[in-house]
């Protein structure tokens, strides 16, 4: 049985079909890359599955249970955590407090939640910045903070929205390593990313979206040779 099963997912914004009849499955332990040109609907897919916006039609099943109609916080409790493309840390709170808030989900006592949060921060190498205000971190650190916050909710699936956007090459390398480590800990990952080299290197499978329609789904090296994908990215003449 698939861990996550999306079938016939549609979202219309007025007359615009943002997502049309999207279906895919996610197996336990995969790293699935979701790519496509700007405006293809990648973030919308995240928002639909995580409960931030309701789909027009379709079904989303996590371990055979529907997620439709749940509030984002309820989806997190079921085991799907996410990060945001434009980072949204609690800016005026310390790094530790940011992650502690997430750890509270499974740990009511503050000392234990803080201990959990420190462990999680160590995993993303932010433990030496625990007392710093989130607003004072670099972009790369803020992205890692968001990952730590998501991890602290103990998810089964982690949705990463452009975890490498705006990072320098060394930080991208670092982020790739982190994603692999998280997978090794038994957490399944879906990531939206524009950084092609990175996504080709770490994904087991890639889905390509174009104008809200899935145009390819397969191993990274097959997908990049797909004629439709090249057309979507570079235009007809290149294909």
């Amino acid at each position, binding site marked *: 049985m698939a861990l996550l099963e999306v079938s016939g997912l549609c979202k219309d914004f007025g007359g615009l079909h943002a997502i049309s009849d999207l279906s895919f499955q996610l197996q336990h332990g995969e790293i699935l890359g979701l790519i496509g040109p700007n405006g293809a609907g990648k973030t919308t897919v995240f928002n639909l599955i*995580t409960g*931030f916006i309701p789909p027009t039609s379709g079904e989303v099943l996590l371990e055979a249970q529907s997620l439709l109609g749940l*509030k*984002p*916080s*309820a989806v*997190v*409790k079921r085991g799907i*955590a*996410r990060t*945001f493309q434009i980072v*949204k*840390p*609690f*800016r*005026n*709170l*310390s790094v530790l*407090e940011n992650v*502690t*808030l*997430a750890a*509270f*989900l499974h740990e*009511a006592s*503050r000392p234990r939640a803080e201990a959990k949060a420190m462990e999680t921060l160590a995993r993303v190498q932010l433990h030496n910045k625990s007392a710093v*205000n989130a607003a004072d971190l670099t972009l790369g650190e803020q992205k890692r903070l968001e990952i730590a*916050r*998501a991890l602290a*909710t103990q998810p089964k699936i982690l949705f990463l929205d452009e975890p490498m956007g705006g990072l320098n090459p060394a930080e991208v390398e670092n982020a790739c390593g982190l994603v692999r480590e998280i997978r090794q800990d038994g957490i399944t990952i879906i990531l939206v990313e524009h950084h092609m080299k990175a996504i080709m290197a770490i994904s087991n499978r890639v889905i390509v979206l174009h104008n809200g329609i899935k145009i390819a789904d397969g191993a990274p090296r097959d997908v990049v040779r797909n004629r439709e994908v090249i057309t979507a990215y570079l235009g007809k003449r290149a294909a």
Partner: protein
Amino acid sequence: MKRLLTVAGIAFLLVAPLLTNNAFFQHLMIMVLFWTLLGASWNLLGGFAGQVSFGHATFLGIGAYTTMLFYLSLHWSPWLGMLAGGVLGALLALPIGLICFRLRGPYFSLATLAVAEIVRLVALNWEQLTAGPVGLLITTLPQVSIADHAINWESKIPFYYLAAGLTLFAIGLTYAVSRSRLGAYLTAVREDIDSAEATGIDTVRARVIALVLSAFVVGLAGGFYALYFRYIDPDAVFAISLSVEMVFIAVVGGLATTAGPIVGAIVLVTISEIFRDRFAAGHLIFYGLFMMLVIRYLPEGIWGQLRFLLSLERRR
């Protein structure tokens, strides 16, 4: 330092009414306590969770009318009536919260304003229940004895201690919330509501709980108002100006701080009396000017700024 301030504050609270026989000063002290109580309750939702309500007079009015009506028609003890006022305020807060918290930011604030106006108009027009604009009057309060001493309700001292007890309760509640998981959740809601949801916080639930707690305490305060003034009408207890004054107290004192409302109430009640005395008809102009200066130069409130200067707390 913080503990010292707390102990000194409580000690002063206990002996203050013995320092003067002047009924006007005693009245002013009661008003400071009353507004501290309201500011602290408003702060629970408006300060900690950042949900600015312009409709808290609703709960004050519900508390006042409940206490009055239960006493006049059902002959309940006013103390029980006061408690009932708090409970009814909290119950009413439940549907209000579930409806208004679907909205965010300024839209939420406008919704609370609308609800408060609806409740005021109902109170004004439902004459069988509330006697409408004529209002309700209690002529005598029932006799209560503590350790064989009958309490003299004509004196202001018993009301002072009643107000002091309620205020300590409100401040204690604020402090407890600020240290709890709920308090942390409310801070998350204030900082970024999407991130709070993505962190697994049920933001509607957290906000409704804060509103219910806040409404309960404001309901108690409403009961106190009814007993102290012994006369209420819809324009006295459901007025928008009351809701706005609660916002002022919390903002001038310092949002999301435990001691802020105390400072806010002391400063605003004093200043309002001085201005009224000095400038008579134009006093509200100066009051408004003072508000503008505070908001412009002390955006974190007077206590918010003092606390930073005294470094009682590391700046967050």
